């Protein structure tokens, strides 16, 4: 388990990161427990784990939205104390501004950063084309499907071109075809602009196909169970290979780690819901 990276520059460093939530009249919930992780510069790192194991919570701490209870998170060697435009985030439930149109949502960060108008408009138009929503520029989020909202959320974050992309199941709401297209887009953008990407997914196959390394988390409290190097499964022209024996082998390997944890998480779920009932 080489959670600690070797030669390359470390972009995100987590040391003993723990998150406890105080719950009224119950023991604290430990969502994340002592996570040590180094994400290298320009690495694409996937996190998989059973539902409720603390994946989102970990992402929020890297984003600076939640404070760590113990340990520390460093970005470029500096301790994270709050959100910043160096770290863009795509939330699991999109969080688009409902009072802004598709175009205005994507423009939002550019306006906040006072980007010149011509550049702003060009970037927005380019992104709208990228996410395939031309013709929907002036539509409000309420009129979009889940998959369309998700694409707008991705474009809104890409617009300000952050060095780090934090993505919480960014393709979860997409249908199979759009999902593949967007995965390829992510790879293309990542190849082009060299970003450090930390993304959570439920889709092990997606994790293997996209990520350099895949972090498998345990059921709650979330710890790192294994880190699997997926690079060896990538063909030189990875974007064009969807199925290969190497990928299938990696997927199986990850499932071996994941199976028990998913079962455990389900038992936890059953216990806590019967506890609530009684």
């Amino acid at each position, binding site marked *: 388990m080489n959670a600690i990276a070797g030669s390359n520059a470390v972009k995100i460093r987590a040391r003993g990161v723990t998150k406890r939530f105080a719950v009224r009249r119950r023991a604290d919930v430990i969502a994340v427990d002592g996570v040590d992780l180094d994400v290298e510069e320009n690495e694409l790192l996937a996190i998989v784990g059973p539902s409720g194991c603390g994946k989102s919570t970990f992402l*929020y701490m890297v*984003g600076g*939205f939640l404070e760590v209870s113990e340990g520390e998170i460093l970005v470029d060697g500096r301790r994270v104390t*709050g*959100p*910043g*435009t160096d*770290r*863009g*985030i795509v*939330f699991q*439930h999109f*969080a*688009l*501004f*409902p*009072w*802004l*149109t598709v175009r205005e949502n994507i423009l*939002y*960060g550019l306006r*906040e*950063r006072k980007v010149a108008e011509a550049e702003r408009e060009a970037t927005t138009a380019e992104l709208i084309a990228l996410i395939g929503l031309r*013709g*929907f520029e002036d*539509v*409000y*989020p*309420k*009129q*979009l*499907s889940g998959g*369309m909202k998700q694409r707008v959320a991705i474009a*809104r*974050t890409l617009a*300000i071109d952050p060095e780090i992309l934090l993505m919480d199941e960014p393709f979860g709401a997409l249908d199979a075809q759009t999902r593949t297209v967007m995965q390829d887009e992510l790879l293309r953008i990542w190849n082009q602009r060299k970003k450090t990407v930390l993304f959570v997914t439920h889709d092990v196959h997606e994790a293997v196909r996209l990520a350099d390394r895949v972090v498998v988390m345990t059921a709650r409290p979330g710890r790192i169970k294994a880190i699997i190097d997926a690079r060896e499964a990538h063909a030189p022209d990875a974007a064009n290979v969807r199925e290969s024996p190497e990928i299938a082998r990696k997927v199986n390997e990850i499932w071996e780690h994941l199976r028990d944890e998913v079962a455990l998480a389900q038992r936890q779920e059953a216990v806590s819901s019967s506890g609530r009932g009684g």
Partner: protein
Amino acid sequence: MAANALSDRTTRQRETPSWLAYRAVYSVVLVLLAWEIASRTALINPFFMPAPSLLVVQAVKLTLQGELLPHMGATLLRALGAILLAIAIGVSLGIAMARIAAVRWFFDPLISLGLPTPKIALWPIFVLWFGFHDQSKIYLTTFACAFPLVSATYLATRDVDRYLLWSARALGTGERRMLWKVIFRAAVPDILTGIQTIIPFAFILIVLTEMLSGGIGLGSMIMLAGRLADIPTVLVGVIGASILGFAVIRLGEYLRARVLVWHEETTDHA
């Protein structure tokens, strides 16, 4: 996908023809008709319950004598003034409470206590402070309407979805701009609901204070007519006040639909 979302919009446009929105009028017409018949056939005493047609005649007569419109105008202006003042005070205080701990600490108990207090009972004091004319009426009504509006605004600005705030932070919005860029906008639907709830309160209170003080205004007109047992004029006054209130409520609904085009609740024809 594109075609789908667009056709979805056009079908919704066709769903509710606008005349259906006025279906509510039928029940009113029915009641008026029954009332007319009951009164004409002396099923109810026409002295105590004059027929609607007589009220129309009375309304026309009063209008021609210049006895109705000035009263309606005075009531309308006072109510609108009180509503606007209550919005200015209520919304800013509500936002301040949600944002500033000290303001919340000071006002929260006062608002909680004041909300169920019968503000009209302060009328004698308002008269002593502001006299018998417009000011006392408008200020008392403002005062009474501010309470529900403060608490609506406070709750709306306090409970903004944290993911919206986080998104804005990650996109570069600082703590200070957050209020205007996100918090206020996210709270607008609930603030508007608060404003819409105070409209009927405002009319009730203005008419009440007019009844208590004489002078110009529908309330005073009603009180005076009552003393002369002039029931048609009383009823014309009551109906006049309802019509004013109704018109302002509809105006509120219209403005809401204009402001909230982006909101789930707004269908496109509205």
